[in-house]
C-alpha cells in the first residue's frame, strides 16, 4: 500500500515535470495552445477536433493540443490552476464559474472583443452566467436544456398516444407504464427515471416559488415552497413506486436506463440524442417539453463557456482560438454535431433546431428554464442536498427533515469557511 501510493506520487511528479518541460519548449513563431475539456461521447470529440484542424489550417502560426479530462474535471482544473499547469483555454461550466471569476484566475475578455464579434447575438442569460460585475470572463459555447424523452413503443403498448402535459398526467401515465411482466415482485419497467441530484431537480424545487440559494449565498432548501415541489418526486418514488433511479435498475445514467428500456420516460438533455441513436439503434423514442408543474413551465438550462487562463503566455493566440470557436461560422460547425444547442440566436435559427422535432422541445425550454448556477457556494450546497435527498427517497426521514438537515449542514459549512 505504501509503495503503491509512493509510486503514484512519483508518477504524478514526473507528469508535472514533463508538462512544465513541454510548455517551455516552444519556438517564437509557432504558439502551441493547450485546450482542455470533457467529452460526453466520442462524437463530441471528433466534431471538436475537426474544427480545431480547420482552425490550424487557417492559422499556421498556432497549434492546438486538445486534451480530454475524463473524470473529476473541475478538481483537475482547479489543481492545475494552483500548480500553474493549467491549459491556456478550457471549458467551464456555468455552475463553477462564480468561484473562478471571484478568485481572478481567468482573463477578462472585454478588451479582446471586437464589434464584429456581435456580442448581442448571444442569448443574454447564457452570457450573464460568465459575467462578474460587468466583466466578461467566458464566451458561452453552447447550452443544453432538459426535456422529456419517452419510449414510443412502450407508450403504444400502454395505450397512451400523447406525452404528458402536466405533472399529474405524468404520474398517471407512469402508473400505466410500470410493469412487472413475470410477476416475480421485481418491477421490469418503470414509468419515470429520475436523477436524485440538485443539478436536475433545482427547477422542481422552484416550481412553487421556492428558492435553493438565498441572496446572501446561503442554502434555502427547507422552505415550505421548495419542499412542496420536491415532494412530488419523493411521493412518486415512495408511494406510487413508478419511478426508479439509475442504480435501482443497474444503470449508470438516466439515458442508459432509458436506452435499456427499463424506464419509459426520462428527463435528459440533447447530449442523449446522439448517444441513444448510436448505442440503442432500435429504440423508438420521441421528445416533448417537460410537463408543467403547478401550471408553470420549467426546466433546467446548463451552459459551458470557453475561458482563458490568466497566466497563459499566448493571450492573443488564445483569444483567436476562442473567437474562432464561438463566432458565427465556428458555432455553426459545432452546433451541427448535435450534442448541445448553439448559444448564438442567429445560429440557432440558421440550423433550424426550433423546427426539428427532436430538438425543438429543448429550444422551447430555453425561454423558461432555470440556469444551473447560484453563486460560489452552490458546489457546497449541492453535496448536502444530494446526500439528504437520497435519504428522503429511501424513506429514512421525511423530505422536510432531510432538507432541514441539508440546509443546516450546508450553511454551517459555508459559515465555517469564512473565518
Amino acid at each position, binding site marked *: 500500500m505504501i509503495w503503491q501510493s509512493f509510486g503514484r506520487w512519483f508518477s504524478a511528479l514526473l507528469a508535472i515535470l514533463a508538462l512544465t518541460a513541454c510548455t517551455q519548449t516552444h519556438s517564437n513563431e509557432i504558439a502551441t495552445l493547450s485546450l482542455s475539456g470533457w467529452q460526453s461521447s466520442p462524437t463530441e470529440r471528433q466534431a471538436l477536433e475537426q474544427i480545431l484542424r480547420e482552425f490550424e489550417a487557417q492559422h499556421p502560426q498556432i497549434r492546438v493540443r486538445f486534451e480530454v479530462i475524463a473524470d473529476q474535471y473541475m478538481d483537475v482544473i482547479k489543481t492545475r490552476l*494552483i500548480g500553474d499547469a493549467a491549459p491556456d483555454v478550457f471549458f467551464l461550466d456555468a455552475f463553477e464559474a462564480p468561484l473562478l471569476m471571484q478568485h481572478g484566475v481567468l482573463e477578462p475578455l472585454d478588451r479582446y472583443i471586437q464589434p464584429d464579434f456581435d456580442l448581442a447575438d448571444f442569448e443574454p442569460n447564457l452570457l450573464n452566467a460568465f459575467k462578474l460585475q460587468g466583466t466578461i470572463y467566458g464566451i458561452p459555447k453552447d447550452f443544453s436544456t432538459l426535456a422529456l424523452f419517452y419510449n414510443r413503443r412502450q407508450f403504444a403498448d400502454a395505450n397512451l398516444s400523447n406525452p404528458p402535459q402536466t405533472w399529474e398526467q405524468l404520474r398517471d401515465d407512469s402508473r400505466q407504464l410500470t410493469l412487472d411482466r413475470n410477476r416475480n415482485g421485481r418491477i421490469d419497467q418503470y414509468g419515470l427515471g429520475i436523477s436524485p441530484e440538485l443539478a436536475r431537480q433545482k427547477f422542481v424545487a422552484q416550481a412553487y416559488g421556492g428558492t435553493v440559494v438565498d441572496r446572501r449565498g446561503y442554502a434555502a432548501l427547507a422552505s415550505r415552497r421548495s419542499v412542496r415541489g420536491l415532494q412530488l418526486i419523493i411521493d412518486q418514488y415512495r408511494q406510487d413506486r413508478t419511478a426508479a433511479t439509475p442504480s*435501482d435498475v443497474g444503470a449508470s445514467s438516466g439515458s442508459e436506463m432509458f436506452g435499456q428500456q427499463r424506464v419509459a420516460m426520462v428527463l435528459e438533455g440533447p447530449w442523449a440524442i446522439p448517444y441513444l441513436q448510436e448505442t440503442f439503434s432500435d429504440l423508438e423514442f420521441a421528445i416533448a417539453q417537460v410537463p408543467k408543474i403547478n401550471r408553470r413551465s420549467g426546466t433546467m438550462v446548463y451552459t459551458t463557456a470557453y475561458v482563458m487562463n490568466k497566466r497563459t503566455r499566448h493571450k492573443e493566440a488564445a483569444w483567436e482560438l476562442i473567437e474562432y470557436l464561438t463566432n458565427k461560422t465556428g458555432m455553426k460547425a459545432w452546433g451541427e454535431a448535435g450534442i448541445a444547442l448553439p448559444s448564438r440566436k442567429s445560429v440557432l435559427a440558421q440550423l433550424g433546431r426550433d423546427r426539428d422535432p427532436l430538438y425543438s422541445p429543448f429550444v422551447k425550454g430555453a425561454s423558461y428554464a432555470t440556469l444551473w448556477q447560484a453563486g460560489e457556494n452552490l458546489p457546497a450546497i449541492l453535496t448536502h442536498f444530494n*446526500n439528504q435527498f*437520497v435519504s428522503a427517497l429511501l424513506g429514512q426521514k421525511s423530505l422536510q427533515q432531510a432538507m432541514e438537515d441539508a440546509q443546516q449542514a450546508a450553511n*454551517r*459549512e459555508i459559515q*465555517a*469557511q469564512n473565518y
Partner: protein
Amino acid sequence: MFKSLIKSQQRQEAFSGYLFMFPTLLILGVFLVLPILFSIFLATHRVQILGEVSYRFVGLRNLTRSTADPRVGIALRNTLEYVLIVVPVQTILALALALILDLKIRGKSWFRVIFFMPTVTSAAVLTLIFMWIYNSNGLLNNLLEKVGLPTYNWLGDPNVALKSIMIMNIWSTAPFFMVIYLAALQDIPTYLYEAAKLDGANEMDRLWNITLPLLKPVTFFIVVMGIIGTFQLFDQSYIFSGGSGGPNNATLTFVLLIYQYAFKNLDIGYAAALALVLALIIMLVTAIQRRLFKDEKAN
C-alpha cells in the same frame, strides 16, 4: 594535550560520520521532515490557494472547527466501523487460508497462486469489476435470487454500501496476509510438533499450543498493517461513490473527507488539520496495541 587530541579526533569522526549520512539526511529532510512540518504549518493557517496565494494564522481554529463538523463525525464512525469489522475478519480469514494451504493437499501451489491473484490486481480495476458484480441486475443479486435469498441495491442503499466495500476489501487483502502467515508457518520447527505428538497431543492441541503462540509476532504485524491500511481507505470508496462518499455519506471515509476538503473545496488548511487528526489516531491505536503486546510478552 592528549585529551584535546582525542577530542579533535572525535570531532573529526563525528564530522565524517555526518558527511556519510548527509545524502540520506537530505533526502529524508526534504521528503519526510519538511512535508510534516509544512502540514503542521498549513493546519494552523487559513490558506487561500487559488489565484492570489495567502496564508493567515488562525491557531487551533481549524481543529476546533473539526469538532463541530458533522461530516467529520460521520467519516470517523464509518472508518471505525470499517476497521473494526475488516481487520479481525481478514486476519482470521488469512490465518485459516494459510493453515489450509499448509496442509498436504494436492495442487496446493495452484491454490496459492489463485488465492494470491486478487492482491496483485490493481485496486481500481478490482473496484470496477466489483461494481459490475454488485450492480442491481448483476452477478451477485442473480445468484442470491437463484438460491432464494434477499437481494440488495449494493451500491445505492446507504445501509449496505459500506458493507459492499468491506466484502470486497477483505477478499482482496486477506490473501496478502495469508502469504505472510504461510511464510511464518514454514518457520515453525517440526521437532516441536513431533515432540507434542509423542506426548499425545492431538491436532487441536498442537494448533492452540504451538502454532498460534508462535505466530503471535506475525499476527501483531498483520493487525498493525491491517489497521493502518483500513484507516487509510480511500480509492475503493472514491470509485464506488464517484468521489462523493454517497449514498447519503454511507461510504464517506476519513481520507475521502480530507480529499474533498483539499481538492473540491480547496480548503487546504482545514484538510491538513484533519490529516493531522488522522495521523494522531493511527499513532494512538498502534501505541495501544504495542502496549497490549508488550504486557503479554512480560507475562
